[in-house]
């Protein structure tokens, strides 16, 4: 990606989605380089504050990937994330930030193809929305 304004920060859980991203690499599946990764132990660690911070620091989109429902390494961290992100999207909408800029999805450790697909889809979504312009508060 040439337009470095369109970065997408991805929070990947250590057990499923991070491994899924590794599998995409093993299979040499391509996705744009503006998808940047931060590893967390569980998607449940993703504080809505992380998402807001990513936007503040210049990200145009945030991807949060966890284990599939029922597969969470920590039993149910991903369910907590599901609730939090739902609320966060509602809040962002109130501030005029398109909720599509945040995507929560599930990628299993073996799902390299799925990771690449989700990453590519997210890039397309964000390209359509364009860079996020935050006004100074």
């Amino acid at each position, binding site marked *: 990606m040439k337009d470095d304004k369109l970065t997408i920060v991805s929070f990947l859980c250590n057990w499923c989605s991070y491994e899924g991203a590794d599998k995409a690499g093993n299979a040499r599946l391509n996705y744009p380089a503006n998808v940047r990764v931060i590893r967390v*132990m569980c998607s449940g660690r993703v504080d809505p504050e992380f998402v807001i911070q990513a936007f503040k620091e210049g990200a145009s989109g945030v991807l949060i990937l966890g284990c599939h429902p029922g597969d969470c390494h920590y039993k149910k961290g991903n369910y907590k994330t599901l609730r*939090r992100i739902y609320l966060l999207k509602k809040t962002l909408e109130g501030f005029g930030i398109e909720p599509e800029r945040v995507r929560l999805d599930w990628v299993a450790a073996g799902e390299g193809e799925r990771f690449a697909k989700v990453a590519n889809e997210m890039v397309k979504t964000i390209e359509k929305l364009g860079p996020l312009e935050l006004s100074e508060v």
Partner: protein
Amino acid sequence: MAERIGVYVCKCGPNIGDKIDVDVIVNDVNSIKNVATAKSHNLLCSEDGIKFLKSEIEKEKLSRVVIAACTPKMYEQKFMKACEEAGLNPYLMQMTNIREQCAWVTPDKTAATEKARSFVIAAINRVLLQEPIEKKEIDIQPDVLVVGGGVAGMEATLTLAQKGRKVYLVDKSPCIGGLGARFEEVYQTMECAPCMLAPEMQDILQKENIETLTHSEIEDVVGSYGNFSVKIRKKARYVSEEACIGCGACFEPCPVEISNEFDEGLSKRKAIYLPFAGALPNVPVIDKDNCKKLKGEECNACEQACPFGAINFDDEDKIIEKQVGAIILATGSMLFDPKSIPRYGYRKFDNVLTGLQLERLNASNGPTGGKILLKNGKEPKSIAFIYCVGRKEKGYCSGVCCMYSVKLAHLLRDKLPDVKIYNLYTDLCLPKKEHQRLYNEAVDKGAKFIRSDGTENVTRVGKNLVVQYKTDTTKKKVSVDMVVLASAVEPDESTEKIAKLLDIPRDEQGFFSEEHALMKPFGTPLEGVFIAGSCQGPKDIADAVAQGGAAAGRILSKLIPGEKLELEPKVAEIDEDLCSGCSTCITLCPYSATHRDEEKKIAVVDDALCRGCGTCVAACPTGAARAKHFTKEQIFAEIKEVAK
């Protein structure tokens, strides 16, 4: 003291070297504040690479290290060990993945280099905020509690005892042996189950380091891996286990007769009884709900008959407390009750039996001494087996009912050479290496296998039972003397209570959930609590034994007398000054690792239970909860660079 960060970018031969301009990155980051040195290496994970890394840490007096290489899933542990050996706390090292998540997914070299640079700078930002974490180790209790004395529990018990461990084997039944002890011959070896199990049971009762607590249930468990405190209710037996020699003189005079649940209701037993002949330990038990004396009536027939004064009507339940390091649950299963499906006529018509009832009829210690008899005392001339009873209702294939029916068909043909056997199946499940052969032999012995559509209906016409069924095309019926229902396997009724007691999950079907369905089928999400046998899902004897052995092996390899247990270092912690005592974290923790200190009115994390997921940290409204090695500041430091 100024920080000295060493940055090492691995080329991984051509894997990274050809896709990313490593020299550009090294050059760029060299000028970043606190970076003492930045270098590339052709293969950092090699022996030479590790040596290089260690000498760099020492020579450059590094206070922190960043390694940009492959996924941390490959060699993070190896690099951490190298740091430790070079005198650097391993948590002051940060790895960033520029191979799987950069070089291999980005064909454009400029873009890949730019992305890798961003990852490396983010890691430098982060590593500056990382803190050393010391290994945490706790003293352990090497004794083990096994709940359930069936084949899985017995195997686990004996494996542990073999290595000298003290094992407490608790069984809610008055005897050990589980379901297996109630079978005659078992597939696929067709050998006598009591003969196969008796030596194991004797071993268990005689080994000094095994304490068998029958007629007992666990009532409370607190603690965590390495240190559980368990309360066991040893129910009053009213017969002294020390004084009784098992002569059986007490049975005859007892005036009470009730249905014997151990014979699936096919025989009567007294209020003082042994579940079946040969049950071990060979000490009867008085059923306090049916004993006249214990209900307040005049009777002491058994007491008078006992030559050893073993009867004790004043016996009371005892609460026994034990300290153990680990718990194996092997609480087993039972059969689905076909009464809930009226079309099978179960408990409506005589001679409609479940597979387990036929097992008892066939057993030499059963109600008929092993004779296959109808209710009227005559031998059946024809028997229909209906397969998959309850499969649709339960929503899973139990995987053992086809085989136990095929086995019973064999045994019936051996005992009653002229009996006609009709097996009405919808799908046959014959998965193991010997099972197909046993099925073929049953066919050779004359057992008929008929594929029906699973809508069998049982009615009574005169003295006979008529089973109506449908093949693909036509409605048919067969008239028989006996119908045997191959009922599904469901979890034992104690499963729910025990799951609640330990706060461990059950699956949709009610069995205990395994930690990982494939890789840890004997673990539970609660560390130190293991599952074995059919409490985890329907399984046959061989699989249950294997799982019992596996669970015991796990314990033997981790819970070693005299050694300490290493705890997860990356746990959550609570800042006492910031905690408002709202308890949000307590409600969220999947491991019950946080609790409230009522005196200080704050939350406290139990390091032995916390697995470091960070769910509580993300929810803490005051920022009092902190995730070690994944703090907000560390993540923000990464975000600052990668979001650019």
